[in-house]
């Protein structure tokens, strides 16, 4: 099956910043992304889980975004402008996709 090279960017970010990140991505011309719920985690600010929480301050999201290699830099700049002052993690992986025209 014919596949095409692309980049898979995963951004783990605070729930409160989700809408800002999504808007920034769309403004940067990204064609799509997927938001996954996060159950818990650990980092410099300690360990947390979502169980029984009622506020939105604690939660996080994982945003997965697949783009053409040449669009990576624009995406990273857009993401970084949002993530910069916030906790969160950005990782990039080389991948192959079907139906390249979608990205």
């Amino acid at each position, binding site marked *: 099956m014919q596949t095409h090279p692309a980049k898979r960017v995963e951004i783990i970010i*605070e729930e409160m*910043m989700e809408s800002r990140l999504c808007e920034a991505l769309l403004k940067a011309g990204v064609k799509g992304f997927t938001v996954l719920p996060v159950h818990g985690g650990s980092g410099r600010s*300690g360990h947390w*889980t*979502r169980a029984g*929480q009622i506020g*939105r301050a604690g939660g996080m999201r994982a945003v997965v975004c697949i783009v053409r290699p040449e669009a990576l830099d624009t995406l990273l700049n857009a993401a970084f402008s949002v993530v910069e002052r916030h906790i969160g993690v950005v990782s990039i992986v080389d991948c192959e996709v079907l139906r390249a025209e979608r990205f």
Partner: protein
Amino acid sequence: MDLLDLALGNLLSPIILCFALGLFAALARSDLTIPEAVAKGMSIYLLFAIGFKGGVAVDTAGFSGTLVGALLAGVFLSFALPLIAFGLLRVMTALSTLDAAAVAAHYGSISIVTFVAGTSVLDSAGLTYDGWMVAVAAAMEAPAILSALWLVARSGSGRQMDSDLWREILLNGSIVLLVGSFAIGWITGPEGLARIESFIVSPFQGVLCLFLLDMGLVAGRGLRGARGILRPGLLAFGILMPLIGATAGAAAGVGLGLGTGSVMLMMVLGASASYIAVPAAMRVALPEANPSVYLTLSLGVTFPFNLTLGLAIYLAVARMLTGG
């Protein structure tokens, strides 16, 4: 009934015991958890019910000048209390300007569950209160956030308010639901209440029990993870500040000539600290402030203090002041 009796009676009510059970389970590292969706569902139920009943009460009792006075007093308290809290924190603790401002915002704002627990203490003491006090609660949620942002801006750092942030602060879910259900209760009045009474009145105390069980679990988990943060100065602040807030609330309540029940609730609003709306706003507006500091303090220290001892004290003082 003297203060000790009252405190004990409150401590041995189902709602406080449920909170204690949650606290114990979390500290003992039991795997008891309430799913997030269920906890959120219960908090929506509580906000809806308390707002609706408040609106119906206004419809029954009629609109009054005192209501406007109480609203203005509430907004003023919410703006002013963070300034006091900030001053205290700079003296009593080693928190940075940023962290101190973020904590201060929480103490100007309010905790609706502490408010609800206060009304339930009044109910079992056979005292009444003005239904519109819930509108005062709604009005006090947001102003404190602006005070905190001003404190930070003054010191040169901080983020500029953008329109998104304004919207998030003023239209956050709990304010919209509280004000909205208040309006619906007001519009539909007693006939509206009759139709949904067996949903929002009778099961209310029971839902509050399960909700406080969850609050105990969350507070306990917070305390377990935050031993390093709670130094003596911060701990002392977490107990001193609600007493100051309650004093300010009492002054406002007596000044406005409110009855015993409403004075007590005004004290509760002054004393309680936010742990839903303000933390969320801080994550957007002051992301560099450390969330474990303000969440631990508000939910792990001030909330349990108010629930167990505070409410009894505030009721006793309100009675003394109003002769009720």
